[in-house]
C-alpha cells in the first residue's frame, strides 16, 4: 500500500472521510428534524403555508453544529444536494429541490466569507438555507390557476386546492418569507446558545 496518495480521490477539496461521514450523519438528523417540523403542516391545506416556518424553527442548531464540526467549503453544498435529492425522490415540488441545491452553494459562500468561524455569518447562511421550502409556494402565488391544474392532475382533490386557494391570499407570500427568516434567526440564535453552553464545552466542535 502506498501511503502517499491514500485518499487522494476525496482529499482534493480538503474533505476527509471523517468529514464526509459527519456530513452524512448530520444530514440524516437534519432531515428527520425537518420532517418533524414539516409533517405537522404539509398535509393540511390551511397550515401548509406555514410549513417553511416550522422547518426553519427546528433545524438551526443542527446546521450550526455541522458547520462548527466541519468548518470547510463543502458540507453545506453537500447537505443541500442530499436534501434536494431526497426531496426529489419523495416527490416534492421541483422548485424546492432545485432551490436547496442552489441556495446550498450560496449559503456555503456566505459562511465561507467568515472562514466558517463567524457565528453571525453562519447564522446568515442558515437563514438562506432555510428558504428553499418557500420555493414551492412561490410557484403557487405566481399563478394559482396553473398550480391548481398541475396538482389536481397529480391526484390531489379539488377540495384541497379550493381550501388552499381560499386560505392563501397574495399578501401571504411576504408573510411566509418574513416568518421563515425570523424563525431561522431565532433558531440560529438558539443554536448559538447551545453551541456555547454545551457542545464547545464537551469538545465536539472542530
Amino acid at each position: 500500500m502506498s501511503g502517499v496518495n491514500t485518499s487522494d480521490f476525496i482529499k482534493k477539496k480538503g474533505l476527509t472521510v471523517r468529514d464526509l461521514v459527519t456530513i452524512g450523519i448530520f444530514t440524516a438528523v437534519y432531515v428527520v428534524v425537518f420532517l418533524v417540523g414539516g409533517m405537522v403542516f404539509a398535509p393540511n391545506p390551511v397550515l401548509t403555508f406555514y410549513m417553511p416556518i416550522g422547518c426553519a424553527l427546528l433545524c438551526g442548531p443542527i446546521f450550526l453544529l455541522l458547520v462548527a464540526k466541519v468548518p470547510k467549503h463543502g458540507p453545506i453544498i453537500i447537505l443541500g444536494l442530499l436534501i434536494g435529492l431526497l426531496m426529489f425522490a419523495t416527490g416534492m415540488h421541483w422548485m424546492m429541490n432545485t432551490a436547496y441545491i442552489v441556495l446550498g452553494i450560496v449559503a456555503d459562500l456566505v459562511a465561507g466569507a467568515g472562514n466558517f468561524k463567524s457565528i453571525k455569518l453562519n447564522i446568515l447562511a442558515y437563514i438562506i438555507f432555510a428558504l428553499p421550502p418557500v420555493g414551492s409556494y412561490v410557484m403557487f402565488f405566481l399563478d394559482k390557476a396553473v398550480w391548481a391544474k398541475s396538482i389536481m392532475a397529480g391526484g390531489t382533490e379539488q377540495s384541497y386546492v379550493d381550501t388552499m386557494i381560499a386560505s392563501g391570499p397574495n399578501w401571504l407570500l411576504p408573510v411566509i418569507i418574513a416568518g421563515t427568516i425570523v424563525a431561522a434567526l431565532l433558531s440560529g440564535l438558539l443554536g448559538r446558545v447551545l453551541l456555547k453552553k454545551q457542545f464547545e464545552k464537551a469538545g465536539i466542535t472542530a
Partner: protein
Amino acid sequence: MNLPQSPGVRFDPRTKLFVVLVAALVVAFSPAKNYQYCFVIAVCIFAAFCGRWRFSAIGLSAYALLQAILWYATHWLAASTLGTMLVAGLGFFNMIFPCGIAAGLTISSTRVSELLAAAVRLRIPGRVYIPLAVLCRYFPSVKEDWRFIRSAMKLRGLTLSPASIVRQPAATIECLYVPLMMSAAKAADELSAAAISRGIESPRPRTCIIDLHIRPADVLVMILFGLAVPAMFLWGVFGL
C-alpha cells in the same frame, strides 16, 4: 444490512434508481388520476418480480384503501368538515404515493454495498456517495435515538406536548437537541473509524462481491418505465 435472498429476479440497483426517477417525474407532471393508478400498479408488479410479494401486496392494498377513503370522503362527506379534513390530509399522501412506493421498494430491496457499487459505476464522486450511504444507514438510528430520548425526557417530567414545551421551553429544547446531536457526533467518529479500517481511503477502485450487470430483464424494465414518460405527455395532450 443483510437481506434474505428473495426468489425473484435480482435487478440492478441502477434499474431501480431509474424507476425512482420516473416516479418523481410522474409526481411532478402527472396528467391524470387514471395515469397515476396505472403507474402505481406497474410499480407494484415490478416489486412482485423483484420477489417482494408482501411489499407489493401491502403497497397495492394501502393504495386501494387510500383511494376508497378519498372517494368516499369526496362523494359522501363533501360538505362536512370531516370530509374536507380527510380529503386534505390524505390528498397529500395520495399525491406523493408513486414516489414513496418506488423509493420504498428501492431501499428495502437493495443492500447498501450494492447501492455503493452502483454509485461508483455511475461515476458519482465519493464526496456525494459516501455521505449518501451514511445517511441511509443512519436513519434508523435517529429513529431509535428519538425513542430513547423521549423516554429519558419522560423520566424528568418533560414531554413533547405543546403544554410541556410552553411550560419549560429551555429544558425541553436542551433535553431534545443535546442528546440527539451528541450521539450524532459520537456516531460520526465511530462510523468513520469503521469505514477507514475497512479501507474506504484506499486509492484503488472500489470492488464489490456482488456481480453488477445490466441484464436483459433490466433493459426491459427500463424500456417499459422509460415509455411511461412519453406516455404521460401523450396522455396529457389527448386527455384520456
